């Protein structure tokens, strides 16, 4: 039994090996370039430093990527998350800006509840298009991706809504136990999604639907409901990320909030080892993927390269990761290595017990 657990662990370790290696290399490169990179200092009861910044800034991406992981695991994709971020952020800011007392906690909570409600509706919309009407996910979510930007601007009337609300700003910039609150929110969401999927049977059912939809149907899984749920969860995650993005700058810009976050999120999921074809998903890998992307952005920024140019590096990362994952590419490598590791533990097992 111990043996199997050990093997299980090595498998997990293997899966996350490359993402961790990339992250470590990037951090090391930064430290060489700027020796103080990894230092953290305590100021006014808050921790400061580049690692903390990376964690804080990656929080929205982690949130979006968590939902995206579930959607991709079912064999789908959600392009609309960026628009959902913008709509929910705009919704919350709009409501708060209209209230006399922007610092009231009830006002902020009402705003969040309203925006979350809207996000739920958007998630349901995507879910219905994909799971009920049966439109291809990439197309179905494209609709909201396009129209959502317009809706966000409609809510803000094309203005950049600036608010001055302490509690709301706290979502993005507040601190708890010396650490940025955003880190805790992302962590809580991650734990919640993990519990939601791994403590219940949902995770396995999602993987089953993504891995073999027909076999799942014949095993009695009502796959429509599972897929529907994934899109709703994705929208809710995106909404919370939208709050963070707007809270960071205390303003909502329907055009800019969450721009391209869908692409970063998909990238994070893929880096984390979840296949775009669906099936097994790895929440820890996704979080690592998001951290890698944010570290990359921060690195590029720290090296005084324009942030847009970080896209060049992203392109390289995307291609590298996809090539590593592509069966056609892998085949060329594994053909050379195939002889050494036995992919058939079946036959080996009894032999182990026989002394040579």
């Amino acid at each position, binding site marked *: 039994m111990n043996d*199997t657990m050990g*093997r*299980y662990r090595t498998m997990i370790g293997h899966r996350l090996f490359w993402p961790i290696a990339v992250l470590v290399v990037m951090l090391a490169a930064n430290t060489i370039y700027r020796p103080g990179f990894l230092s953290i200092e305590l100021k006014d009861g808050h921790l400061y430093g580049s690692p903390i910044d990376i964690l804080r800034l990656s929080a929205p991406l982690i949130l979006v990527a968590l939902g995206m992981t579930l959607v991709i695991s079912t064999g789908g994709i959600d392009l609309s998350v960026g628009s959902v971020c913008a709509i929910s952020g705009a919704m919350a800011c709009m409501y708060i800006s209209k209230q006399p007392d922007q610092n009231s906690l009830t006002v902020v909570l009402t705003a969040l509840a309203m925006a979350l409600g809207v996000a739920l509706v958007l998630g349901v919309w995507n879910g219905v298009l994909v799971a009920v009407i049966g439109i291809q996910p990439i197309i179905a979510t494209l609709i909201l991706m396009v129209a959502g930007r317009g809706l966000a601007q409609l809510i803000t009337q094309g203005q950049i809504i600036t608010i001055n609300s302490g509690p709301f700003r706290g979502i993005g910039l507040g601190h708890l136990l010396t650490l940025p609150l955003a880190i805790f929110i992302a962590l809580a969401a991650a734990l919640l999604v993990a519990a939601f999927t791994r*403590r*219940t*049977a*949902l995770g*396995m*059912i999602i*993987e*089953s639907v993504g*891995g*073999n939809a*027909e*076999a*799942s*149907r*014949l*095993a*009695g*899984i*009502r796959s429509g409901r*599972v897929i529907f749920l994934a899109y709703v969860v994705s929208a809710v995650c995106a909404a919370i990320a939208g709050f963070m993005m707007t809270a960071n700058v205390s303003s909502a810009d329907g055009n800019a909030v969450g721009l391209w976050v869908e692409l970063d999120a998909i990238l994070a999921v893929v880096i984390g080892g979840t296949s775009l074809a669906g*099936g*097994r998903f790895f929440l820890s890998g996704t979080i690592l993927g998001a951290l890698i992307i944010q570290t990359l952005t921060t690195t590029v920024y720290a090296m005084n390269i324009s942030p847009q140019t970080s896209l060049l590096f992203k392109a390289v990362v995307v291609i590298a990761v996809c090539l590593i994952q592509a069966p056609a590419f892998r085949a060329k490598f594994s053909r050379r290595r195939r002889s050494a590791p036995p*992919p*058939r*533990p*079946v036959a080996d*097992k009894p032999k182990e017990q026989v002394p040579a």
Partner: protein
Amino acid sequence: MTDSRPVLTMTGISKSFPGVRALHDVNFRLFPGEVHALMGENGAGKSTLIKVLTGVYDTDEGAITLHGEPVSFTGPMQATAAGVSTVYQEVNLCTNLSVAENIFIGREPRLLGAVRWGEVRRRARALLARLDLDLDVSAPLGSYSLAIQQMVAIARAIDIQARVLILDEPTSSLDAGEVAQLFRIMRQLRDEGIAILFVTHFLDQVYEIADRITVLRNGGLVGEYPTAELPQLSLVEKMIGKELDVLEGIEEHSRRDLAELEEGTPLVAVSNLGRAGAVAPFSLTIHAGEVVGLAGLLGSGRTEVARLFFGADRADGGQVAIDGTSSSLRTPAQAIDQGVGFCSENRRAEGIVPELSVRENIILAMQAARGWLRPIPRRRQDELVDKYVKALNIRPADPEVPVRNLSGGNQQKVLLARWLITEPRLLILDEPTRGIDIGAKTEIQRLVTQLSDGGMAVLFISAELEEVLRLSHKVAVMRDRQMVAQLANDEGLDAERIMQTIASGSHREEVDR
């Protein structure tokens, strides 16, 4: 009618794949102006032979000649160019393109690089007229029925001056009228001197159209016969083979009397359940503790019956009663709720979820029935999984291994375990012993007996009559998509009689009800 010299010969063809001898010393010849049926059960080597002929596979041994010249094609394109064209079971055309274009794409008449559409249409009309078909050649192919699409595929195939036309199960999705159209064209082409190799599972069709029959079994040649000299019963015997002497050491369990078993309300009773294009309406009852065998050749509708019982396909009409009360089996989830389990014959596509572990694959159906909010506690999972891994002797005995790493037989056992832990009242097993080694096969047969003794009803499908006979209390016989008989499995029933029923389609000595 038949020329004395064959247009095509294949001699001493052998072909092996790692671990499997697919063809062994097979001879085959095809004369101009004949329809030659290639017959055999699953795994007999029909498709391998066709693939060797068209160059998809190399031969290990043997020679092929075309018009007396030795040939060795490197692929279907080259075979087509040499006049050997294939039309596949699934129409391999593009339904979004026009009829004319489907016939000519890839070799359109052109002028300075521009396709001459007028010429394309004119030639297409001429070609179709030769087949006596009146179609609008500029309409998209998808607007025509499958039968017409099949004929367009034939038109495409023969335009390349085909001398040999291979039709690989072209009739499997056609209805009777459409088959008649197809046969009319086949006869016409035959009369024009084209040699036609025809693969089908429908016995009636063979006797209607084929001039000669070549039978393969287990990769070997059984023989070549003029159709007129081979009665249907002999054909079935030759295809299935008389392996009546292979009774492995399964203890013959005291078979309960059918009449006794069928007392009281049946567990499941269906009447007039059917689905157009899949299986004609049939009625069948299954009682608790009863094993009903489904016998019939490949493609006779065995699997389709099973799928209707499980709600995997939706029936067009008919009634279902469970425990005597009216019910329905419209989706798998609904069937599972009613206590039905179904092991598909297609393990890979419809059974296992390859990425998931053995444990997860086993608990999948049980978990689905409980809903995701009520996960099976891990300890309970391990108990159940351990129990069945041991009971079914699943190797490797590590439940965390991805199921794709298991051998076919072990995957089959995992699927059995998946259903057994749901404790179904009716278990449908579609070819559970196909493609697995003899040991696993015996284990599964023994298990079926145990389950039925314990009160479970089993619908057992197998291509091997012996197996069906050994396990079943009642045998329902399928032929050409119809349930033609239900026979009580008493002393009077043997493989011979089932074969007769399959061959003749007679309803003699049907079980009441």
